[in-house]
């Protein structure tokens, strides 16, 4: 499974658990518009860390938290192997 599909699937799974109705997930969608609150993002980052072994937001001190879904996915895609 690609990194992108892992991230998207985790977002859908958490949305289901948190009773969040997601809009269509395009790269341009701002994370704010997903309907996720900070707890939901915290869960997402923790699950992805367990799944992929990386937490791109803790590794890099100067990493700004992404603004869009596309930025968020790329943060995982761009982690050096």
């Amino acid at each position: 499974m690609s990194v992108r599909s892992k991230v998207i699937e985790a977002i859908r799974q958490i949305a289901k658990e948190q009773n969040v109705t997601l809009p269509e997930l395009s790269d341009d969608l701002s994370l704010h518009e997903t309907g996720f609150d900070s707890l939901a993002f915290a869960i997402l980052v923790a699950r992805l860390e367990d799944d992929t072994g990386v937490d791109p937001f803790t590794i890099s001190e100067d990493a700004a938290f992404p603004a869009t879904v596309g930025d968020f996915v790329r943060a995982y895609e761009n982690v050096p192997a």
Partner: protein
Amino acid sequence: MSPREIFALRDHLGAELKVRTISDAQHVVSLTDILSQTVLGGRLSELSGRSVLLKLSDQLRSGLAMIELDGIARRMLLCPPDLNPAHLDALIADAGIDAVVTDEAGRWANSGISLVVTAQLPLEATAPAKTERATEWLMLTSGTSGVPKIVGHTLEALTGAIVAEGPARGSAPVWATFYDIRRYGGLQIFLRAILSGGSMVLSDPHEALGDHVARLKARGVSHISGTPSHWRKLLMSGSAAQFAPAYVRLSGEIADQAVLDGLKAAFPNSSVGHAYASTEAGVGFAVNDGLEGFPADYLGNRNGVEMKVIDGSLRIRSTRTAHAYVGRSAAALTDDDGFVDSGDIVELRGDRYYFVGRRGGIINIGGLKVHPEEIEAVINRHPDVRMSRAKSRKSPITGGIVVADVILADGTDQARVKEIRDQILAQCRAQLASHKVPAVIRFVEALDVTPAGKLARTDAS
């Protein structure tokens, strides 16, 4: 005016009761003639009026030495097996120790303690001693990372709950405990065995659980106590089959409904009760209705134990509490009114109080306080869960999130694991505030339990 009559352990032991024993995995010692025998090589009189450190590598000799020393020594400090040796010097100074009873005499040769007495088996014959004084019992608190606190008790305080309950009905009980008898929970059971005219089967940390249970069965154990973690381990081990004690007791940790129900299912003909006690507060009460928590009308004055809830924590005043912390810089053990603050947080729901956790065990989740025990109690209600531990994990987003390690029942179909995870999460969402719902559930094979029998809450992972 005559002084109150002082009872020591020896005054509860007489030759009139036959076939009483105290045993461990290696030895069986008769309690019937114990007063004319010595584990101290006949040197008890040298220890009269002394402040004695009881530092032995096994429980059997420790128990026999307690029987001899009580009523003779000025005080005795019980050292549990997991005591950090680096703390010994501070404890010796604080307790004013001037004698040691040990099985490693060589280790104490240059310690500055002039009187070193070796405890040894087999027992030797001696003339019975007479009670001289009320010996002060010093116990150590568990669970603190620094030097443990020394807690001072009298035998009268330690046995208050046992005397109040009265003698056991029917034949003399055979008591056992998963605890070490040098800890408060285990000492209560040892004292029950002595005062009730019964026998005692000691645990052995090196013995496999299956062998331990086989020994409990073989020795006819009728009454047995342990922490919920001890009991969960037993239920998981599959060793409980064919063991049928009359009385199963839990203490030392929160007994949630899942473990109470699990024990009732495993031991359908046993009475299952949970007791509330701590080294400092003594025995507060026992709950025998099979339900977690305790009835709200236990607050107030009941059987000489007064309880109240202030700032969420249970406070206790009774003649069974310890009388002081011992040592030069020891803090006050009670408030000005004589109440001990247990540090155990309770919550009133309907007509019952429920334990939600320890004040010191709170984890911080995004600025909100969470008791891990409250989350574990909900997870443990899932029928496929045997044991769980909730803890916090750092999060770059909220600072912290709740994660849970869960042990599933033996033989759980791996294909069902995802479904079980979803069910646990649904259960948590239905019963807990959203920040308390675990963000991640990890299925594990084992969870650590401390030497004091409690779920280990501080590890590196």
